């Protein structure tokens, strides 16, 4: 590659593939020409850690394909762990770690969560306002104190680099007055200067404060690197040109500071690869500048670099692309770097159902209901999906595949989940019995079911931490309400200190003071149990790892069962399971429990999104924002809440980029005064420009939303609403004919006939048209007897599969919560019968399919391996051979083959569901994801229990 490369990649055109390919090509070219090169020469910067992970995975795969005979590729593969592939902040952090110490930067500097740095920002902003009285005076002429504080905070968090680089707007700019009233213009100009000075003072104080605490924030790392490159010549000499290739992904969402860093790092021989899509720039609110993308393209073109446009869409059904091509060519008018070139679909093979794949879901007033009704009408039906396939010669095509539609195929995308929007959708869906999940309303560790359990860590680190205690007691772990908590506190107040005076004790120590009748007995029992678990863990808190503490607490509190009981949709259970998958990360977070706790909500755990997005366990509709959906794809996308309106109110300040003679020019900054500006003023022009940019941004958010669909797109629409600016609604109005306010479902606009279809959801009822299932005759074996088999805590356990034995009820009183469970599930409670050969076969089969194990690989009658199971020791060799002889006959069995080749196999899969007051618990012997589910989100699971009544059927 001689010059820079610019890749413009519309949604679904294989951007990650293109970047990974480029990364590998760089090495290929170097190897070919005998150039020295290693992973330290190439940097690839992405937007999220998830994207970085995907890219790395793909690159490893590509290098792996070439690694066969060539030692250079093998060396490259082994050095990939040191490759510079990551997010911009991790990239900056790594450089600072390397060269920072010599430049006086603390190598222990860590990126803190917003909850840590925001209070610091606020305090320093307030302090700055008090201590800089002279600056405050002109500012208060144009702005209130609250508004000023807001401006300082927003500025610190989102626009720091830009503000520090800006100059204040004067009372006139280029002969045009800033405001029509000369007095206001003069005041405003003075205030603008004062604000920039105040901001700089606050910023310095804040940085100092954060440095003393050893923390920084996202932009802090970037700023530190920028400053290092600008102010330390020796560091600049060392770093400039150090990287021969810099690949920047999602360049359309890059801000001023990030661009500056890339420019500072680039040496005369450095080649930059810019990758992105102007239509998908949706982070303006975080300071992203889509214009930088256009400028980069122009620069690459003028410096004889290469500009590539990826226009083959690998994601969506061709009919869906007909819609996006047509609709967005009208939305993004004009060509150039920010225009919209149509994408080309993949060739198809066996794809059926060519009816419109874009639907308008019309409902007179309720968009949530429109979405719910639509989902209900589709789930369970057969539908023709498309699937990417390769013909072996590297040609990719779309093949048709008919299968049923599941809840998990749907994603509802909303512009903003604010003011209870998520709740509204949840309610509408639940009303129709649709399991759903609102993604990321709060962070993973803020979910009550997670916080409730994890708070025991905080409590063990500091038993006096009442906030942690209250969190735990109010969470599903104990389930108290505020009244109970008040009662607990009240009892605690009567505890006497040693000197006879009142001693304030922590909430957790109030528990033993509770008296009978204080709270409901069931809660009391759980409260005491919590205290008991806490005491046991307290004794050993220094010996256990955080993950072990959490596991023991969960078991002691019977937490999973509790969650299943209060949340029939199982999302809480899914989150709970996810916590354990990630719990080991907690162990490594810090050496002491106290530090682990302090880092819980830090960026290292940000990737832990609440369960559901990719969890095949949760067959639920996902509700999420467009920003959360970026980079993802779903079979059916419903773009909803399209009539959202922009809240009234304006930003606290505005920028305008001044076109300079050379480079990008500088920013002009102005606050917004209380007095509205009229036409013919700089302020008015800047406000207009801001509005125009906002409108452009909303076109792009709509583009990102609609292009997430692979098979079917639905857009909700209500009768036009008049009040407020409704950016999406206005854009979408061109799809249908104006309806004149009759409330009737509108007709498709002439341009979209045959491409878009209107579904009148106001007139639809959920049960209408849902096909009844199953054509085959049902077989219904007898229900075995249910016998109580034992008690743990207050739970009565009942087995549905014990046949004729007398109940082994221990005579202890049961609670009303019951578990009916497979007798295999709890071996302690049912003594093993040593001659039960069926059980032995069962144990052998436990490993079948796991990690691709075949039955043949597990053993045979000639090589009768013994399963690694304690109970297997009870069988002698003859018995073992006997069992293997039977299993040998099953080696070519269709079902065994199916399990062996399954995508994913789970053994002893536990299912819990509430049943009235009781809970049903069962374990399915084998659960596997079959071929139909291969290839991503559209999974299908077959519960398949092999030896069902072990002894009985086997013998």
């Amino acid at each position, binding site marked *: 590659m001689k010059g820079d490369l610019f890749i413009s990649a519309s949604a679904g055109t294989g951007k990650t593939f293109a970047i990974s390919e480029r990364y590998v090509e760089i090495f290929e070219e170097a190897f070919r020409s005998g150039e020295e090169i290693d992973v330290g020469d190439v940097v690839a910067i992405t937007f999220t850690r998830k994207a970085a992970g995907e890219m790395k995975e793909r690159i490893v795969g590509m290098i792996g394909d070439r690694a066969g005979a060539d030692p250079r590729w093998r060396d490259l593969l082994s050095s990939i762990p040191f490759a510079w592939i990551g997010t911009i902040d991790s990239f900056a952090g790594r450089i600072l770690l390397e060269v920072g110490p010599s430049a006086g930067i603390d190598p222990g500097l860590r990126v803190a969560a917003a909850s840590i740095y925001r209070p610091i920002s606020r305090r320093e902003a307030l302090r700055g306002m008090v201590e800089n009285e002279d600056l405050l005076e002109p500012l208060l002429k144009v702005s209130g104190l609250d508004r000023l504080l807001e401006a300082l905070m927003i500025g610190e968090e989102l626009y720091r680099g830009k503000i520090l680089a800006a100059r204040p707007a004067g009372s006139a700019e280029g002969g045009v007055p800033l405001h029509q009233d000369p007095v206001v213009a003069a005041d405003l100009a003075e205030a603008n200067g004062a604000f920039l000075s105040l901001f700089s003072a606050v910023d310095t104080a804040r940085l100092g404060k954060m440095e003393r605490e050893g923390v920084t924030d996202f932009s802090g790392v970037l700023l530190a690197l920028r400053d290092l490159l600008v102010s330390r010549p020796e560091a600049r000499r060392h770093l400039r040109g150090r990287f021969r290739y810099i690949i920047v992904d999602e360049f359309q969402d890059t801000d001023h500071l990030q661009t500056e860093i890339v420019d500072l790092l680039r040496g005369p021989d450095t080649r930059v690869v810019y990758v992105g899509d102007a239509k998908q720039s949706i982070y303006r609110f975080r300071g992203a500048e889509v214009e930088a993308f256009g400028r980069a393209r122009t620069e690459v073109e003028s410096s004889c670099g290469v500009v590539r446009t990826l226009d083959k869409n690998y994601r969506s059904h061709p009919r869906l692309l007909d819609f996006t091509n047509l609709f967005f060519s009208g939305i993004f008018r004009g060509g150039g770097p920010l225009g919209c070139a149509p994408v080309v679909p993949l060739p198809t093979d066996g794809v059926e159902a060519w009816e419109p794949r874009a639907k308008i879901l019309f409902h007179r007033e309720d968009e949530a209901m429109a979405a719910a009704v639509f989902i209900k009408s589709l*789930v*369970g039906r057969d539908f023709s999906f498309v699937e990417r396939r390769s013909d072996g010669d590297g040609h990719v095509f779309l093949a048709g595949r008919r299968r*049923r539609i*599941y809840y998990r195929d749907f994603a509802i995308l909303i512009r903003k989940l604010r003011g209870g929007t998520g709740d509204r959708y949840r309610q509408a869906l639940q009303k129709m019995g649709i399991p759903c999940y609102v993604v990321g309303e709060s962070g993973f560790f803020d979910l009550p079911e997670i916080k409730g359990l994890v708070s025991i860590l905080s409590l063990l680190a500091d038993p006096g931490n009442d906030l942690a205690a209250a969190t735990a007691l109010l969470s599903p772990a104990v389930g108290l309400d505020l009244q109970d908590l008040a009662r607990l506190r009240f009892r605690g107040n009567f505890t006497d200190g040693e000197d006879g005076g009142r001693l304030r004790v922590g909430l957790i120590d109030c528990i033993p003071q509770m008296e009978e009748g204080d*709270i*409901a007995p*069931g809660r*009391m029992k759980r409260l005491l149990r919590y205290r008991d678990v806490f005491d046991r863990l307290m004794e050993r808190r220094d010996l256990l790892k955080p993950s072990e503490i959490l596991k023991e607490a969960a078991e002691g509190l019977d937490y999973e069962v509790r969650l299943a009981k209060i949340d029939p949709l199982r999302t809480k259970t899914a989150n709970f399971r996810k916590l354990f998958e990630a719990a080991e990360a907690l162990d490594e977070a810090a050496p002491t429990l106290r530090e682990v706790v302090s880092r819980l909500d830090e960026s290292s755990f940000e990737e832990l999104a609440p369960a559901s997005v990719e969890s095949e*366990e949760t*067959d639920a509709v996902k509700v999420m924002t467009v920003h959360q959906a970026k980079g993802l794809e779903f079979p059916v996308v419903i773009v909803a809440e399209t009539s959202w309106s922009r809240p009234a109110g304006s930003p606290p300040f505005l920028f305008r980029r001044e076109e300079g003679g050379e480079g990008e020019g500088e920013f002009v900054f102005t606050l917004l005064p209380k007095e509205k500006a009229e036409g013919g003023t700089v302020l008015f022009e800047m406000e207009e420009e801001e509005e125009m940019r906002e409108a452009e941004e909303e076109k792009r958010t709509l583009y990102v939303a609609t292009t997430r669909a692979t098979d079917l797109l639905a857009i909700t629409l209500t009768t036009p609403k008049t009040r407020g600016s409704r950016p999406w609604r206005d854009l979408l109005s061109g799809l249908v004919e104006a309806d004149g306010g009759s409330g009737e479902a509108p007709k498709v606009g002439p341009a979209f006939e045959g491409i878009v279809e209107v579904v009148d959801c106001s007139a639809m009822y959920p049960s209408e048209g849902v096909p*009844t*299932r*199953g054509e*085959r005759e*049902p*077989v*219904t*074996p007898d*229900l075995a007897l*249910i*016998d*109580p088999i034992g008690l743990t805590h*207050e739970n*009565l356990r*009942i087995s*549905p599969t014990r046949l004729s034995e007398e*109940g082994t*009820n221990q*005579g*202890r*009183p*049961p*609670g*009303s919560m*019951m578990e009916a469970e497979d007798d295999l599930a709890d071996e302690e409670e049912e003594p093993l019968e040593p001659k039960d050969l*069926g059980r032995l076969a069962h144990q052998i089969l436990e490993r079948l399919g796991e990690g691709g194990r075949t039955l043949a690989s597990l053993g045979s009658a000639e090589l009768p391996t013994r399963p690694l199971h304690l109970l297997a020791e009870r069988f002698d060799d003859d018995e073992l051979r006997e069992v293997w002889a*039977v299993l040998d006959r*099953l080696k070519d*069995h*269709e*079902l065994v083959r199916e399990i062996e080749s399954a995508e994913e196999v789970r053994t002893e899969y536990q*299912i819990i*569901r509430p*049943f*009235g*007051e009781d809970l*049903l618990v*069962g374990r*399915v012997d084998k659960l596997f994801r079959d071929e139909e589910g291969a290839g991503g989100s559209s999974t*299908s*699971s*077959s*519960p*398949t*229990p*092999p*030896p*069902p009544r072990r002894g009985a*059927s*086997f013998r």
Partner: protein
Amino acid sequence: MKFYIYLARELFCPLLGARLFYLKDGKVQDVFLEDELVEGFELELSARIEEAKGRSTPGTEGEEG
């Protein structure tokens, strides 16, 4: 077996049914629990549970108090 299908039917909705696999002879039997049979099954299950509770020593406070 119905018990398992009943457990799994909402988790893997739409219901796929389950497969009984007899190791002795490799016989496979597909089992379904049709929608219209669910209600009957629930009643039966409920009765069985009540019966089992009845045979236990009468209880103390319920879980929710």
